[in-house]
């Protein structure tokens, strides 16, 4: 296969991404229509049949499912996902008003995971088969094994209840962000650490590192500028999947820490049957996962110059 230009790749990835998001919201729409009639959530026993019919009409729930689906798609293309059944505000703005909170938490967790995982992985690789290495690897296994909802509660128990250092939940200053960030980012940092470690071990044995040493480069330059860049490729590859896991993780972490983001909103709306907001939320979430994966694909050439030259 010859070298492809960035724009060709970007175009085909975007097209695939749109298809994926389309399928996701179609599935969610159809499954949600199998649910108990949402009108039942919103009315009491005293509501008359006429009023119920009127409500159904207003909410776009009347008529055959096929027609409803086509109408839904037609409106969705224009970014109109209907109004919240509860607050009557547009569903999409209901979700986007929460987005910044989730974005804050997600970004903090991502940065935390890389800032902890990558240096730890490098150190473990350089001190391979020493107690440092074993400790780092054991920490990684532990980080992968701890259920995040339990970790969150334990952190609250020690740091918020016993020591009173941090707030137990809610959002506000930077101190509100600390415990949720650790809870959400620990798993990802364990994965990054393991990938960085094995990548570094591979690359430190290669010819180009030997050449760099022979040239008389300082060891720290070799490690952090040349070798690490090579070792980061698998870390970057898995980043797209990590973002997906993290977004799913926010549903749990936001619930544990009463963090007012999309995850908590989703849990609430789904339980009360507020389907427009739910679909809007899933649309936003799956779009961001798709975009994250496209960005990861586009970042390969920056990390690995060989891809830029089209040799892979």
């Amino acid at each position: 296969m010859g070298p492809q230009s960035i724009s060709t790749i970007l175009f085909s990835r975007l097209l695939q991404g749109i298809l994926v998001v389309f399928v996701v919201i179609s599935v969610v729409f159809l499954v949600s229509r199998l649910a108990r009639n949402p009108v039942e959530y919103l009315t009491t026993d005293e509501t008359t049949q006429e009023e119920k019919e009127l409500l159904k009409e207003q909410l776009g729930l009347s008529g055959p499912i096929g027609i409803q689906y086509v109408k839904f798609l037609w409106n969705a293309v224009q970014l109109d996902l209907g109004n919240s059944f509860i607050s009557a505000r547009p569903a999409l703005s209901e979700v986007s008003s929460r987005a910044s909170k989730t974005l804050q938490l997600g970004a903090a967790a991502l940065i935390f995971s890389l800032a902890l995982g990558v240096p730890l992985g490098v150190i473990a690789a350089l001190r391979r088969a020493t107690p440092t290495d074993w400790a780092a690897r054991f920490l990684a296994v532990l980080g992968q094994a701890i259920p995040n909802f339990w970790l969150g509660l334990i952190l609250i128990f020690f740091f918020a209840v016993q020591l009173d250092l941090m707030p137990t939940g809610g959002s506000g200053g930077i101190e509100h962000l600390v415990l949720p960030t650790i809870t959400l980012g620990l798993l990802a940092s364990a994965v990054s650490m393991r990938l960085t470690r094995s990548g570094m071990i591979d690359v430190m044995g290669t010819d180009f590192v030997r050449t760099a040493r022979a040239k008389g480069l300082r060891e720290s330059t070799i490690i952090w500028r040349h070798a690490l860049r090579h070792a980061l490729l698998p870390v970057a590859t898995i980043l797209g999947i990590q973002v997906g896991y993290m977004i799913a993780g926010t549903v749990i972490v936001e619930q544990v820490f009463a963090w007012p983001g999309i995850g908590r909103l989703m849990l609430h709306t789904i339980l009360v049957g507020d389907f427009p907001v739910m679909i809007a939320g899933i649309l936003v979430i799956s779009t961001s996962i798709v975009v994250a994966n496209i960005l990861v694909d586009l970042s390969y050439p920056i990390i690995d110059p060989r891809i830029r030259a089209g040799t892979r």
Partner: protein
Amino acid sequence: MAARAVAAAPGSLLRGVRLGGSWQQAVLLAPAIIILLAFLVAGVFADLLSAYDPEQIVLQERLIPPAFQAEGSWAHPLGTDNLGRDILSRVMYGARVSLLVVVTCIPASALIGTFCGLLAGWRLGWWDRFLMRIVDVQLALPAILFALLISVVFGASLLNVILIIIIFSWSGYARLVRADVLSLREQEFVVAARASGASDRRILFRHVLPNIVNTIVIMATLDVPSVILIEAALSFLNIGVAPGTPSWGAMISEGRNFMTIAWWPIWMPGIAILLVSLTGNLFGDWLRDTLDPRLRNVR
């Protein structure tokens, strides 16, 4: 995506094959096997081993601390929860729920995933594109959100949890098997089998599959802790097992409201999850290093 992770790991094929893993792993392996056995026994024989009915409420015996604390008693070695239910019994029945999820979800998703991976990697073309797009869709729709939706539409139940986990975990096997088939199909022994007129079925089952079995076994082992964690997380959010069922996640969710006055209702099931998932991971890592060091970068 995982396939790319393997391909992108430079030089991973060159690493020497070491049998048996390192001695550090061996040291950790013995306790790991003991814990896994304890988990198995507790799950299978929960009804014989537990002294109490896990769902029996005794309000007079609320929040009794575990036996090693001053106010505790050996009648309830791990204490009781906010409704006076015996925590040890509930932890054992919780092991049964986790075990049930493991023995149903993992074989099912491994079978479906292997079949689809073989199909995609061998037939290529339309099948391959179709199956890989389904995988993309799954990656873009977090299992937890889908589980939320399902629990509202069809209600919370163990069966739904199992189905959701299967729906979301077969694709991991499919991607891995597909990647292996793609590299195996160009190997000389496969090309030779084709040239000698062997049927697709014969090639796949006699030549390709035996070369992939290790990969599948390793992936299945590493899936044990993740499947247990998913079930626990869903039950924690009250969208997993039906209310009242003694599941580790549900126990933590209930104990959460009392965690400032009683630590044991959330610690006991939490430690159970942690131990099983920790040992499952250690065991899986050891198996991988023993059977197939090449896979070390998959997770």
